[in-house]
Each structure stands twice: as C-alpha cells, then as structure tokens.
C-alpha cells in the first residue's frame, strides 16, 4: 500500500510541480498622450521544466489583462405609464474598467470550474464575487448585462486561441489596448494549465499613466477646481473674442 502511494506521488506529484512559467512583457508602462490611439501589448514567455514534457494531460495557457476596478451602478428600464423609466438598480463594488482574456483553446474545455473559482480567472467569475450593495431579486441578470455592455463597447475582450504555443514551450499573446483607457495599474495574469488544473501562475503589472498636457489638466481639474473653472471660462472668452476680431479684420 505504502509503495503504491509512493509510486503515485513520484509519478503525479513532481510532474505538477516541475513545470513553471517564465514570462515577460513588451512594455511595463503605457503613456497616454494627446494623440494616444491605443497601445499594443505583447505578453510572452516559456515553460521551464526539469524533465521532458509529459505527453498528457495536454498543456494549455490563459493570459488575462485587467484594468483598474471601480464601483458601478447598473440600472434596468421598465415601462411605466407608457414611458421607459429606470427602475431596479444594482450597485457593484468592483467592476474592471477593462478585461481581456486570451487562451490557447476554448475556455470551457481547458479550464475546470473548480480552478476558475479558486483563481478567479474568467470575467464572469471575477464579477460573481464582487460585493453587491443594492440588490435586486435577479442580481445575476445585472451582472450578465454588465458583461454584455462591456463587450459591446470593446472593453471586455475574449480571444479564444489568442495564446500561441510553440513546441509546447514558448508562448505569446497579443493585446490591443483601446484608446479609452482608464488610468491606473493594469494587471497581467498568466496561468499554466494541464487537464483543466492550474499548475503555475505569474502576475505582472503595467502602469497606465497620462503624461504631458493630459497629466497637467487632470491634476489641475482635481486639485485646483476653482482656478481650473475660471481658466476654462477665460479660454472660452478669449477664443470667442479672438474669433470675432479675426472675422472682422478678414472681412475688411
């Protein structure tokens, strides 16, 4: 009996432990300038092993890229006296502003529900654990709507077979960040899987920051709001007067 357990441990245990991820990012910061139109991120890496790769179960990879979270309110319209009015509302404590998931195969085939629950990999899982402050009878409908609207806006992206594997060792995943980014730390999570089970994870972050005039305007708007407001008015006044003068001279 003991020999059997030992044999099992030797054959299964070490296989799980001896594969690990070595990863890198094409960039670890994104600077938002006035002409920012989005940014390409390349996530790459390799699987490190002490012994030859096992033949089965098959190896898979999932890479997620997630933007900073903030609270949102989801509202549902209902028809009252003939007009469509916001009625039920659900407040969600933490909803990512951006979420992209790339994998080497169909998610439901390569990832077991247990491990999804444990590691919070998919967006549906991430949203399912967010704190719901104002509830409705069917809060899950609101969670689904959040995902649906985010996908329609291009903020939630699923790239099935977005992870390219080479010789079961090297991998890469390409992400195209859209232009409407929220400032903050973006998290890249990488999962190495075999037979639906996660056997190694890595996490890295990308700093997304406004720079130059974008930075200065944002800072001023938040730290000197009155001055910012007056400056906005002055800008409007000068532009209005300037255009009027230019047209007058031009018409002479």
């Amino acid at each position, binding site marked *: 009996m003991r020999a059997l357990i030992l044999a099992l441990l030797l054959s299964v245990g070490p296989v799980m432990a001896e594969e690990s991820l070595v990863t890198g990012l094409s960039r670890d910061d994104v600077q938002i300038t006035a*002409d920012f139109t989005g940014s390409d991120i390349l996530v790459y890496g390799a699987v490190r092993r002490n012994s030859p790769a096992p033949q089965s179960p098959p190896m898979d990879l999932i890479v997620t890229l997630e933007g900073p979270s*903030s609270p949102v309110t989801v509202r549902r319209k209902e028809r009252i006296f003939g007009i469509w*009015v*916001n009625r039920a509302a659900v407040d969600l404590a933490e909803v990512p*502003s951006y979420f992209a998931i790339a994998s080497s195969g169909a998610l439901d085939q390569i990832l077991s529900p247990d491990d999804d629950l444990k590691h919070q990999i998919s967006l549906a899982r991430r949203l399912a654990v967010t704190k719901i402050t104002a509830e409705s009878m069917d809060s899950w409908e609101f969670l689904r709507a959040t995902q649906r609207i985010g996908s329609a806006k291009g903020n939630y992206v699923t790239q099935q077979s977005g992870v390219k594997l080479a010789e079961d060792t090297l991998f890469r995943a390409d992400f195209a960040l859209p232009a409407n980014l929220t*400032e903050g730390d973006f998290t890249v999570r990488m999962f190495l899987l075999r037979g639906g089970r996660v056997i190694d994870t890595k996490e890295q972050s990308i700093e997304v920051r406004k720079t130059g005039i974008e930075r200065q305007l944002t800072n001023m*708007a938040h730290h000197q709001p009155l001055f910012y*407001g007056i400056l906005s008015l002055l800008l409007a006044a000068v532009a*209005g007067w300037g255009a009027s003068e230019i047209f007058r001279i031009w018409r002479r």
Partner: protein
Amino acid sequence: MQIYLPIAEVSVNLFLLLGLGGLVGFLSGMFGVGGGFLITPLLMLIGVPSGVAVATGANQVVASSISGVLAQLRRKGVDFVMGTVLLIGGLVGSFIGVQVFAYMTELGQVDVFVQLSYVFFLGFIGATMFWESARAILRSQRQGAQQIRRAHEHSWMHSLPFKVKFRKSGLFISVLPPLVLGAAVGILSAIMGVGGGFILVPAMIYLLGMPTKVVVGTSLFQIIFVTGFTTIMHAVNSQTVDMMLAFVLIVGGVIGAQIGSRMSTRLKPEQLRILLALLVLAVSIKIALDLLLMPSELYSVTRLVLP
C-alpha cells in the same frame, strides 16, 4: 486624427469634434440659442460620459455666445438693460433650479425628469413657434410683405409698477415680467443643463414684445453669464469640465457662430423662427421616442468616479 480627452478619458476624432462645435456655433450665431440642448446629447452620442458632456457643453456655449454677442453688438442688437434684468432673474431661478435638481436626484428619477422636461418644453415651444411662423409666412405670401404684428399693444403688462424704459427694444414696461421670465428660464436651465436660449428667444418676442433684431443679441448676452456660472459650478463640484474637449469645440464653435450670425441677417425673421422651431421640434421628438420606444438594451452601466 484622434485626440485623447483627459477628463472624459476617451479618444475622439479631432475633425468630428471640430465639426460638432462648428454646427452648434452656427446655430448659436443664427438663432441666438446657446446650443446646449444640442451639444450635450451629441457629445453623449459619440461616447463622452454624460456628466462631462453637460459641463463641457456649458463651457463651449460661453465661447460661442461671446463671439455671437460681439457680432450682434456691432449691429446694435444687444439691449444691455433688458439683458441685465433677465440675468438677475436668471441667477435667482438657477439657484432654485439647482435645489429642485438635487431633490429629484435624491428620488432617483433625475434622468426621466430631465428627459420629460426636454420633451415638454421643447415640444411646446417648438410647436407654438412653428404654428405662428408658418402663419406669418403664409400671410406674407398671400398679401405681399406685410408688417408682422407684435405684442406691442397695451396689455395688462403695461399696468404693472416699476416701469423702465428699454430703449434698444423700444419698450416702456415694468421690470417684473422680464424678471419673472429670467427666473423661469433660470430654473429650467439648471434642471435641463442648458443656457435656455430656446425658451428665452420666443418668450422675448411673444411675451415681452421685443423686436426680433435685438432678441438674439440680448439672449446671448444673458446666456454667457448663466452658462459661465454653470461651468464654474461643475468644475468645482464634480470636476467634469474637460478643457481639451472644450478647446476643440470652441475653435469650431466660434467660427460657426460668426458665419451663423451673418447668415441670420440674410433671412427674414419668420424664416429664422420656423427653422428654429423645426430644430427644436426634432430634438423633442427624438427624446420622446427614446422614452416611448422599447430600448434595445434595457440595462445601463454607470461608472462612479472614484474620489
């Protein structure tokens, strides 16, 4: 060519924004309306968050109104006495309006309240103006160029106290009606997030009996201060004024306003009024349809900005 807006946090096509600003500026110069009732929905349509759209729209309206007033000033089309009286009423009204707005927000129905206000006021004013100006045009076609009758006759308004001579408008009436009118417009503009020109212009013509040639300039004069006040309020309270967005809109807007105010001298007053009436009606019908038709997406997601 795309431009990233720092407060709105979206990237928008530069020429689309310039065009939007130009279109609204053109209407502003032509009709003497600030254009807030157009710019705000249009900005939201291209993906600018609604809070930023309202606040920045107000800022853009300031610039196009200044440009428009200066153009009108040279044609002696601004009644400063009347403008000041309207403005005093307007500031009082906007103070009241802000309280009503806060109360509706507390009830959680501010969106529908604002939309219904749009439908009701734009619809009523648009329909009335359309009816009146259509009749005026028909009359002038039938009988050649006939003088349009204004509410210049003696009415109950002339028996009110505190009479003041509004020389530019050729009126000698009590300050009470313009004060009340200014206040009413102030309330509406605070609730609807607009300058109120589309209500002010017809009211000045039909209620106060002012001549059309001073109506546009005087209304713009009042709008500058009301929207300026709104801009500062939003900048301080919610930090939703996007200066970059405002700048691009303004560049387009001031040019549009100049062209618009020159165009307005080429058209007959009743033609001007029927065009404005059609525009106002179109916006109100659009908003009414949004309320009446079943939306394709019943849910909406509002991201709360972190402090």
